[in-house]
């Protein structure tokens, strides 16, 4: 009887159905005539089914930070409570990957999934808001076209994960279809009003700015070919100045030679309006050529060469190798 009483919480825990996964990567790269070794982010990923309607997803990253006394910081990347209210329709609360483009939604911190070693340049340039804390209304795989939607309302740029810094809410709207196996076509829009004096990506925004982002996505991941192309147009309307139009794009293409080996290329381009004040105003082009060796779905090796040409700081080359694992 006593044993049965003590067994009960264990049984409840088992019924809760919690899974823990992790992702990590290590790199070795040659740049400026120096060979470097580095460890990447360690990503702890937890999912839990709470009952038939509610589920939880959490993602926490441990990463190098020179300003930390221990050299590492803990970063909460996602905390999502999902409520499946009907069919394939969900309401999501919490901190999300902003559904503004495919890469941000599909890969983010799981480098074992990345088709290349690193993210496209538009991420490094802070071109899109990577996270949004708020509420989302999501539909998945609806009808023959496997239509999907996501309408997200959340704290805007300059706010934090615990409170908003002004009355304006950021709004993200995403529509996509998957008409054939392996295909994904999508379009998304984002709008936010950023208050004067806000700090966004470590940069002080001196004037009130209305930002609108528009993204288009075409992706195909088949058994032979892989293609991922995304382009974002950013319209920044700064009070007292004219509106600026800046663009960020990338195209990835891979050819699967067999189950394990995929040579690939990626082209990135950042094109800023001459009057751009919101981003670092430096036009940049980059080309990557490399190959991926998938030992299995949990161990992926990549080697690539990247040439980057920046308008102001000039050109640079990088030879990089990475081993990414899931565990």
């Amino acid at each position, binding site marked *: 009887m006593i044993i049965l009483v003590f067994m009960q919480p264990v049984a409840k825990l088992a019924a809760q159905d919690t*899974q823990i*996964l992790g992702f990590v990567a290590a790199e070795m790269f040659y740049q400026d005539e120096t060979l470097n070794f580095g460890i990447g982010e360690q990503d702890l*990923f937890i*999912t839990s*089914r709470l009952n*038939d309607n509610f*589920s939880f*997803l959490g993602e926490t990253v441990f990463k190098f930070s020179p300003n930390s006394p221990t050299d590492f910081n803990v970063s909460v990347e*996602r905390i*999502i409570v*999902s409520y*499946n209210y*009907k*069919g*394939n329709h969900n309401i999501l609360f919490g901190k999300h990957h902003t559904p503004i483009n495919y890469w941000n*939604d*599909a890969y983010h911190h*799981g480098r074992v*999934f990345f088709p290349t070693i690193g993210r496209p340049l538009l991420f490094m340039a802070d071109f899109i808001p990577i996270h949004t804390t708020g509420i989302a209304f999501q539909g*998945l*795989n609806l009808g023959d076209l*496997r239509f999907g939607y996501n309408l997200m309302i959340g704290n805007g740029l300059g706010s934090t994960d615990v409170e908003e810094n002004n009355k304006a809410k950021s709004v993200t709207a995403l529509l996509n279809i998957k008409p054939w196996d392996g295909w994904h076509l999508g379009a998304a829009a984002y709008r936010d009003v950023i208050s004067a004096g806000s700090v966004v990506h470590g940069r002080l925004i001196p004037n009130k700015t209305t930002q609108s982002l528009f993204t288009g996505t075409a992706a195909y991941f088949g058994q032979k070919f892989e293609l991922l192309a995304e382009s974002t147009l950013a319209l920044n309307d700064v009070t007292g100045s004219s509106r600026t139009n800046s663009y960020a794009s990338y195209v990835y293409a891979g050819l699967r030679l067999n*189950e394990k080996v995929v040579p690939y290329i990626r082209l990135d381009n950042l094109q800023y309006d001459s009057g751009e004040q919101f981003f670092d105003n430096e036009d940049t082009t980059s080309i990557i050529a490399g190959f991926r060796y*998938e030992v*299995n*779905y*949990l161990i992926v090796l990549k080697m690539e060469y990247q040439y980057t040409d920046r308008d102001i700081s000039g050109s640079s080359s990088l030879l990089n190798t990475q081993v990414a694992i*899931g565990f």
Partner: protein
Amino acid sequence: MRMNCKIIIALIALFVAGCIPAVGQGMQLNIVGNPQSVPAKMDIDQLKTILKGEKLRWDDGVSVKIALMKTNTSIGSYTCERIFNMSTNELNKYFLAQVFQGKVKAPNFFTSKSELEEYVARTPGAIGVSQNTAENDGEIKLIVIDGRKQL
């Protein structure tokens, strides 16, 4: 005498090799479902959609629970090839990616077909892939796919 021995050994080797089935060779899969909520028949495209986790609930609102044999079993390996048109590695990668995106709940994987069928029998809304399943007293039902009970 030595020649006879060689012939006998070769015949035995051929017999033994013939007795070992290649993965998937002659294998017939059954789609099994819990009597509650799971429809009695569907087409192969609907089945693929369901087993890939793209349908979250049945028409009566009960959530879909997927039961598959582990991909390192012969049934699991043949399921990948026959139903998903993927390698075992591709299937594992697919579900890992979908779970990471928060869009699909991972299937329940089993090491024996009796465990899988027991899970399907006691779990409303469960659907799974098994082999040589007998319908038993309403606890589990065989789903007809494109007019056939075997794939």
